[in-house]
């Protein structure tokens, strides 16, 4: 029985080198960093070192890192925390319609319940946002722009530095010191440049479980001077913005994972791109009525997202699962909401195309043999499901 994990965009396995540095802090080094004794000091020192290591990788200052429980909390803290703290300076927010739900639903909350105005920029059919769209949407009362670095479903890489640049220019011209730029970099961290100086962002979300680190870990980079309203209350940890005893082992794991993926990202990118392209070309070449979702050029090295027209993604997911191939679908039935992928819909395709989308996300463990096995296994499964399907979606809807 094969065991091919192609869902690394959902979560990655823990790197053994990460586990190794975490273990002492799950064992004998159990102190609370807030304690004023030797046991506490061991934890405090470890926490400080982890923060410094992360700051070095990201080219920021250690006091600009806030540890959280993951990507969702970081996104929520950035959007809700910033907007609530700064609403006296403006109530307009810009984001995109294909953000992760942790950004999208936080923005919708502010829009529906707290009197903010939100502009949702629509990506083009290739899954790209044009910096000009952002520039055109900026207003004198815009306080926050949030655009993801790389999309979690279709893997498209947005021109964050360019967007950041144009926001900075607008801020300087109009003297709008409270206009800030946030990016969710969870999917980008393992593959792209994370030098925050170059990205021109003011806040950045990343997390452990997408970079071979531990689940339940994440951070928000917050540029010095930016004030956030906490989402939780009750302690002085993380400057009172994120109270609660720190997950010392998790943070140490996060720091190690970030260090490793950034050190290895160029080599890993070069290793994965041929596999990614082999999988894309193999599927599009051997299975009719398929389309690649998202730009081919501006694409994460580990993302393949294909719509199999005329079939429903969940059925294919389960057939693949039975063959020992683990992929994912944003389509209807796998999520509790029954909604098809909001990302594919945001790209301008109809429900039929969104329902048939499958994401294969590659990772450390992916081999050439894995890709070949998928390419051999997939066509008959698609053929079976198509023979069951009464639907033939017109080409004008998906080509």
């Amino acid at each position, binding site marked *: 029985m094969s065991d091919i994990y192609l869902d690394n965009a959902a979560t990655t396995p823990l790197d053994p080198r990460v586990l190794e540095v975490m273990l002492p802090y799950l064992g004998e080094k159990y102190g609370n960093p807030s304690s004023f004794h030797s046991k506490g000091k061991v934890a405090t020192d470890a926490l400080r070192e982890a923060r410094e290591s992360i700051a070095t990788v990201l080219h920021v200052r250690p006091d600009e890192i806030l540890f959280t429980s993951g990507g969702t909390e970081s996104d929520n803290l950035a959007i809700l925390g910033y907007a609530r703290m700064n609403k006296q300076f403006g109530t307009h927010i810009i984001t995109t319609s294909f953000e992760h739900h942790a950004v999208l639903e936080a923005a919708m909350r502010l829009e529906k319940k707290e009197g903010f105005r939100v502009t949702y920029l629509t990506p083009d059919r290739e899954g790209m946002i044009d910096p000009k769209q952002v520039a055109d949407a900026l207003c004198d009362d815009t306080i926050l722009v949030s655009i993801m670095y790389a999309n979690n479903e279709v893997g498209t890489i947005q021109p964050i530095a360019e967007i950041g640049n144009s926001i900075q220019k607008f801020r300087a011209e109009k003297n709008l010191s409270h206009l800030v730029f946030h990016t969710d970099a969870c999917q980008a961290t393992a593959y792209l440049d994370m030098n925050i100086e170059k990205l021109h962002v003011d806040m950045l979300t990343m997390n452990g479980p997408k970079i071979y680190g531990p689940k339940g870990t994440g951070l928000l980079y917050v540029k010095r001077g930016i004030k956030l309203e906490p989402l939780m209350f009750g302690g002085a940890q993380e400057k009172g913005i994120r109270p609660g005893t720190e997950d010392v082992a998790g943070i140490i794991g996060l720091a190690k994972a970030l260090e490793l993926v950034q050190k290895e990202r160029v080599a890993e990118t070069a290793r994965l791109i041929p596999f990614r392209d082999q999988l894309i070309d193999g599927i599009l070449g051997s299975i009719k009525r398929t389309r690649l979702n998202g730009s081919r050029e501006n694409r994460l090295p580990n993302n393949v997202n294909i719509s199999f027209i005329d079939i429903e993604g969940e059925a294919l997911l389960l057939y693949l699962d039975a063959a020992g191939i683990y992929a994912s679908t944003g389509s209807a039935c796998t999520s509790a909401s029954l909604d098809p992928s909001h990302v594919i819909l945001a790209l301008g395709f109809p429900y039929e195309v969104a329902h048939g989308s499958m994401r294969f996300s590659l990772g450390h463990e992916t081999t050439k043999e894995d890709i070949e096995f998928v390419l051999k296994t997939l066509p008959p499964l698609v053929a079976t499901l198509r023979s069951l399907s009464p*639907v033939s979606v017109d080409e004008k809807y998906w080509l």
Partner: protein
Amino acid sequence: MDHKQEPVLGTKGDVASHDQTKSWFYTDIVKEHFFHPKNFMENDADESQYNAIGKVGSPACGDELRVWMKVNPETEKIEEFKWKTFGCGSAIASTSIASVIVTENGGMTLTEARALKPQDIMERLGGLPQRKFHCSVLCDKALRDAINDFYRRTDQFDKMVVESSRIIDPVSKVTDHDIEEAVLDGAQTIEQVQQKTKVGIGNPNCLPAVEELIRFYREKYFGAA
């Protein structure tokens, strides 16, 4: 294998599986019918061979189901039941087992078949995750659509039964017809339908079904998903 565990909530009158320890959230029977579906229409249907044809749903809703039946004109028993579906695992499995139920033991009469409820299909499958309920609801609807088609073709118009409404939320007693009315009245989202009907306010478990219906009726009346 390390399968995602799906917590399954059961409510009164529901036959969803309560067993949370299963590694797969479908039963073995569901899997058998999903991986080895019975009686599906293998090629393009030669519709002249069938005397009762039914259809429900649309691919935009996430499910579309078509059925072709051969009904014995003398006995009105279902001799053959072929189907095709665009849908998830549950939709495929529930249609497959329904095709077995209506044709086994010499075949059901149309009267018996019309009495087939989603619960009967779910019971034979050994339960479905609760939010998959709508899949088997589609399959009994397509069956009844085909039964009406047979009566229409045989000029037995008095035997055709127009769908009566079905309670979606046992708490607020809101029916699918109420949701249809709300959509016709301009509601486009769950919130707007709730403002008009109160559906799901005390019973959020039914909201996925409501969402599906809103999309279904919007597609049906406004051609928009």
